[in-house]
């Protein structure tokens, strides 16, 4: 197999990129560990692709630095950075066969011919396309083209592999197939991988850690679980997984609990660190599976709210309800249908939504 490249340690130090008046990347600092699978996640225009372009060397930062093993690579031109890259668009060289595409990085490095043949075969075997070396790119499917591009990016054993929405042009089924492939190759080679996507499922499925981008800034860095359970901002909460947001007013604090008033006037408690000034307007976030629907107010649950079921959809492993709160807002409830969970609610049923104070988050 391909030798594991020397693992790299990549650090972005207060990176900023302006295009005229537009700030594409705004003071981004990020540390990527050796061998880590780090995903840059964010909506389009959030600065993640520009950040990747700066790392690859195609864009120069307006200020800030990119450091590899604490050495600045700002002055290193892209073709000397020894970074592997897979693009969103198909970028195989159209006039070359698959073999020559994968051989290209080694040919420009003037490796001996016999070494090249062997390395190309290993790289193609790694992406399971060992027998397609003679094909031209236009004879390959989109998934195959991206796998060849991956082989081409790995054949010279780069220290860092960056991927810019490599599966964006593929359909869903193919995408999941190649996702598994990329995970396997990452584990096998231990290469440091930076992966850009706007697809939160993809980010959660593949990454060791995720950096969430919004308006050119990194708003939170963490594992998928951390981002899902303790989003740092309302944006992260809304972007990763589905959420309900309820506008509420802070009434006061009691120890570790903050008391807020819901739009229907009921008071509810939220476990929240930090200060919350009375009278402040806040956003209350609840994940759809973190609250329960029941006919009567259950014992022991501090927080409740009465609702009317407006829609129930059976999705096999889950039941998804849309309920309408007293103040007219539609809320999402997901019942994970574990064993022994019996109650079903039909449309029009008046029910009670209940949750524990620790499962709700407050944002300004």
């Amino acid at each position, binding site marked *: 197999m391909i030798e594991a490249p020397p693992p790299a340690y990549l650090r972005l130090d207060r990176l900023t990129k302006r295009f005229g008046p537009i700030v594409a990347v705004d003071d981004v600092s990020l540390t990527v560990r050796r061998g880590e699978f780090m995903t840059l996640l964010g909506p389009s225009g959030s600065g993640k692709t520009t950040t990747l372009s700066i790392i690859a060397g195609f864009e120069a930062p307006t200020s800030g630095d990119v450091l590899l093993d604490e050495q600045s690579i700002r002055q290193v031109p892209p073709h000397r950075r020894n970074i592997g890259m897979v693009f969103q668009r198909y970028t195989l*060289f159209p006039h070359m066969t698959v073999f020559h595409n994968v051989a290209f990085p080694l040919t420009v*490095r003037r490796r001996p011919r016999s070494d090249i043949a062997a390395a190309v075969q290993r790289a193609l075997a790694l992406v399971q396309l060992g027998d397609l070396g003679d094909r031209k790119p236009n004879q390959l499917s989109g998934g195959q083209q991206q796998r060849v591009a991956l082989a081409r990016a790995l054949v010279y054993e780069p220290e860092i592999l960056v991927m810019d929405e490599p599966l964006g042009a593929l359909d869903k089924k193919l995408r999941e197939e190649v996702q598994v492939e990329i995970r396997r190759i990452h584990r096998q080679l231990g290469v440091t991988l930076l992966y850009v996507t706007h697809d939160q499922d993809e980010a959660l499925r593949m990454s060791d850690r995720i950096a969430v981008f919004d308006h050119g800034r990194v708003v939170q860095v963490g594992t998928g679980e951390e981002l899902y359970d303790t989003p740092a901002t309302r944006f992260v909460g809304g972007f990763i997984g589905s959420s309900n947001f309820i506008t509420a007013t802070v009434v006061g604090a009691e120890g570790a609990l903050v008391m807020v008033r819901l739009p229907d006037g009921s008071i509810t408690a939220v476990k929240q660190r930090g200060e919350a000034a009375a009278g402040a307007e806040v956003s209350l976030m609840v994940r759809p599976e973190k609250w329960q629907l029941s006919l009567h107010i259950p014992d022991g649950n501090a927080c409740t709210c009465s609702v009317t079921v407006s829609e129930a959809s059976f999705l096999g492993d889950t039941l998804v309800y849309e309920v309408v709160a007293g103040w007219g807002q539609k809320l999402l409830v997901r019942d994970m249908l574990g064993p022994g969970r019996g109650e079903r609610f039909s449309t029009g049923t008046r029910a009670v939504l209940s949750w524990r104070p620790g499962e709700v988050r407050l944002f300004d």
Partner: protein
Amino acid sequence: MLLTLDRIGPGRYALYVIGVVTAIFLLLPIVFIALLSFGSSQWLQFPPPSWTLRWYRELFVDPRWVAAFWTSARIATTVMVLSIALGLPVSFALVRGRFWGRNLLHAFFVSPLIIPVVILGIGLYAIFLDIELNGTFPGLVAGHLILALPFSVVCISNALQGFDEGIEQAAVICGASPIAAVWRVTLPSIRAGVLSAALFSFLVSWDEVVLSIFLSGPIWQPISVKIWTSLQLNLNPVIAAVSTILILVTTLAMGGAYLLRRRIAR
């Protein structure tokens, strides 16, 4: 549904007739000239009383005709090479460049296509008179180049426009220097466009009469000018033979380019 031949019904026969008549109209002069060049009549009588290769023999033994032929070939080849050499950087600048006045510059490079050649000829003649380029090889090449460059720029710019710059970036991140990436990836990818540019540049120069009349002299006389001046003296079948050879060269050039393009497409 689109309009197809099947849906027109009997009307399609009218279309066939129009198509065939148009083709005949376009081809007839060429066929006529080719037939006359093999005819025995001194006065270009048609149909020819008998067939002969006499005019071709006369042509090939006349050093003035042979010289004119080689003059044209040398000028056209030089124009072709220079037109590509200049057209490539111009196209890169026009397609990839981000600078003020880019569209204006593009229009400028295409403008020789819309300026009447006679006017260009008068202007060049006046300028070349001063710098003593009239009747010289460089003068003819420079004049033809003005007419050929727009074709080269249009062909290469179009090809470059259709080429994803990301592919070049991929070559760079793979370790190729920017120049190596252009040389090994971009140029091979747009070679069909470069080939068309070369073909058009060659043919523009090969066919050129008006500008050449202004710029040629006794030593450097392209075959098109030679035909023109001979015609003014007398009309004889040698000119038909020359014309046939000219058409043959053009056809061969286009056929060769077609075969090359087909190989590229594969």
